[in-house]
Each structure stands twice: as structure tokens, then as C-alpha cells.
């Protein structure tokens, strides 16, 4: 269904960049979250990866920092319709973190300090597509943007890139996280405009 909107012309269209449907270019870095920003101390920070058999592997902040670091430059797309091009991050690839984890699970529930959760297929976390990011634009990631560390899955809508990440739980069956239970899409591919369940 399409209808013209009389008198609407819109901004000049961005040239030479690929913008998913329904998105606009943002140069700032908007903040969206469902509750207060937690203030976390890296001294007690940890990341737990738990398999479907209940085996947990943990990393402290120092252990995370000791791993090989990537510096991805990626475009990010928020479901509230802003896209930001060429963001630069530093962090650890999930390929690195999950390489030795024994699991046949197809789904993951990512959990955060503060209680936020989001679900993703494991396939979206592997293959150089996802990181635990702790540095943005050359500086430590600020708390409002998910610091000290957030998941970074830039090829999906940004609510999947859980701020204040502290757990990844592997699951044989998909279950829904915070926004997904409230009607948002289980995968969230911006190029297919999967904003809500049923899109």
C-alpha cells in the first residue's frame, strides 16, 4: 500500500550511501534505553557464556582486554529510524570468545546488567559479525551508550546490540528477550525492515 503525501518532499537524499528502508542519516549518537543507565565498575565486571548443558565460561575485564582486539568500522541502524555511518569501535570478536565453547544450540539470549535481554540466532553472532565492544570513536564507551562494554551486532537493528552486556546463554529453542516479548522482531534485519513481529 502506498499513498502520496501531498506537499512532502523530504530532505535531500543521501548520495553514494546505502540506507535501509525507512531510515534516515544521523550524525549524532542518540541514546535509547528502557530504564536508568547502570554505573558499572570494570573491577567487578564479568561476562558469562553458558551453554545449553549448563556449562559456564567467564571472562573478567582484564581477561577480555588480554584477548586479540578488532577495530571494526561499521554502519549502525536503530529501529527508531536513525542510521549512523562509519562508526569506529574496538572490541573482541565473538568468534574469539565462542570458539572453544561446546554447544550445538542455534539461539542465544544475551543478558545485561540491569536485566535487559535480547535473543539472536547464534549464526548472527559468528563469522566476523559481532563483537563485545568497549571503545567507541577512540574513547572508552560511555555508560549511556552501554559502557563499559556492549554487544555490537551492526548488521541487525541496534536493540540487538545489548548495552551493559554481561551474559550470553545458548539455547536449543528460541525464546524472546525484552523488546521481542513486547512485539519487536526476533531477528531484526534492517534491510528487510523487520521492526516488529510479523514484518
Amino acid at each position, binding site marked *: 500500500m502506498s499513498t502520496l*503525501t501531498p506537499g*512532502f518532499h523530504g530532505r535531500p*537524499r543521501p548520495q553514494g550511501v546505502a540506507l535501509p528502508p525507512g531510515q534516515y542519516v544521523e550524525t549524532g549518537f*542518540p541514546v535509547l534505553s*528502557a*530504564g536508568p543507565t547502570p554505573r558499572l565498575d570494570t573491577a567487578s565486571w564479568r561476562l558469562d557464556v553458558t551453554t545449553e548443558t549448563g556449562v559456564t565460561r567467564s571472562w573478567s575485564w582484564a581477561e577480555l582486554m588480554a584477548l586479540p582486539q578488532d577495530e571494526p568500522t561499521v554502519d549502525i541502524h536503530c529501529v527508531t529510524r536513525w542510521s549512523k555511518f562509519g562508526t569506529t569501535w574496538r572490541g573482541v570478536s565473538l568468534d574469539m570468545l565462542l570458539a572453544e565453547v561446546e554447544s550445538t544450540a542455534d539461539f542465544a539470549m544475551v543478558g545485561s546488567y540491569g536485566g535487559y535481554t535480547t535473543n539472536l540466532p547464534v549464526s548472527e553472532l559468528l563469522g566476523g559479525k559481532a563483537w563485545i565492544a568497549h571503545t567507541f570513536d577512540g574513547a572508552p564507551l560511555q555508560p*549511556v551508550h552501554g559502557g563499559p562494554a556492549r554487544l555490537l551486532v551492526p548488521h541487525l537493528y541496534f536493540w540487538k546490540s545489548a548495552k551493559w552486556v554481561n551474559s550470553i546463554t545458548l539455547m536449543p529453542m528460541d525464546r524472546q528477550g525484552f523488546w*521481542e*516479548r513486547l*512485539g519487536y522482531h526476533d531477528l531484526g534485519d534492517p534491510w528487510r525492515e523487520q521492526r516488529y513481529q510479523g514484518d
Partner: protein
Amino acid sequence: MTEAPARLGARYARPSGWQIATLVDAWAESPSARTLVLEVAHWPGHMAGQHVDLRLTAPDGYRAERSYSVGSAATRSTVPDGSALDGAAPARVELTVQRVAGGEVSTYLTDVFAVGDAIELRGPIGGWFVWSPERDAGTPVLLAAGGSGLVPLMAMLRTRREAGDRTPFRLVYSVRRPEDRLYVADLDRLAAAHDGLDVQVVYTRSVPLGSMRGPGRLERRELAAWGWPAEIEPACFVCGPTGFVEALARQLVSLGHDPARIRTERFGPAAD
């Protein structure tokens, strides 16, 4: 872990498909904000705090979409899960749009969009930042609004009035200048009913004549005085620009409120 196998939000949070809505009335809510009354043919009902998506299409096919909170009182759901338009009833839905300088969509909606024009709409959307008298009555509520963040909170106050609900509510509303206030007359009426709603307005840039308080941001001690003690475990809804929401949520946490009872909705670029 809090995830559940069933999607509880599906009953009300699943947006229906795009449909055409018609602007049937509109008025200035302030010099820079406009209330739009949209007639929607198939409306499954909404909860206070939910929003809709609007989609605009330019002659060359370019499209822009934005979300706007519904400011009118909740309407009871007419279909079981909101997923089907069959059986959904026609309704009038009010949105209030704040004009953003240089805004691609807001300037169209405040300055160009005319009564009789059509626009694509879908919704209602959102199941987190919501208040319903059926579900939430009895728990005291603090509403904190910055600027046009008042819109979804106004829907909560109007819903409370229409339901005859007497749940104690306190609203703290921060605006730059007196002329920026939204819903002035209706908010005065709500407060004058003396049925358990207290309203405090603070001005950050300039104050009305005779005001006892000078211009300035809401302070922690004011929030402590005008909000609820953390011990009674109120539900807190904070909506506004990011800087406002960050500051308020942080103050509430420092006053002892459980972060799990503070729901936030933000818009606009990060202050930093």
C-alpha cells in the same frame, strides 16, 4: 532470567499493518507544537503511553517514517490480540507534534499537513512504557516530563480521568519557557479536580511573572519533595530528551528508587 515462552505483549503490542488515516482536526498546542486528530478506520484500541508510526511518501517514492506518542486517552481493545484489523473499530487518535528546527517530518506535520489530507499510519505500538487502570491501579505513579515528553504521560492522566481512577499521581513537568507548555487548559482542569493528582511545573529558561522559583533545571531536592518516597515503591515514568531522562533517572536511583520501577522513553540526540 525473565524471558517467558509466551509473548505477553502480543495482546497489545503487535502493530497491525499500514492503513490510511485522515487528518480531521488540528490546533496549535503551543507556538511550536501542533495537535493532530487523525481518523483511523481500523483501530484495535490502545493503552496510554503507546505510539504510532507515520509514513510519508514524496513524489519520487522517497519515504520517511517517524514514531509519535498518542496523547489521547486509552481506548479499550476491540480485538483479542490487536493483530487483525477485522473487527477493529474506527477511532479518532490525537498526536502532538513538536516542531524540530530543520526537522524533515515534524515541520511537514506542523506547517504543511492540512485537514482532509491522508497519511499512512500503523499501530498502536509499544508495551513497556504504558499505564493501564485495569492493570496498574493502586500503585502510586510519578510522571516526569521534559518538553514534549509530556505527550504519552498526558495520555496516562487522561486515561485515569476517563476511568474514574483515583490512583495517586504526581506529575513533574519541565519546560523551557511558559509559552512552551503543552495542554495548559486540560492540565489545569485535571489538577483542579483534586482527586489525587499533583502537578508541578518547572521552567528552565524563563519563568512566568510572579513565579517564586527562578529558571533552572529540576533539582534533586525538588524531585525528592514533589515525587514519592522510594519506600512506597511508586511506578516512575520518565519521558523527554536524553539529557533530561538521564538526569531524572539518575536522581531517582540516587533517591533510592529501584531501577526496575523506572521506565524511560527518550528522544533526540545525546546531550554529550
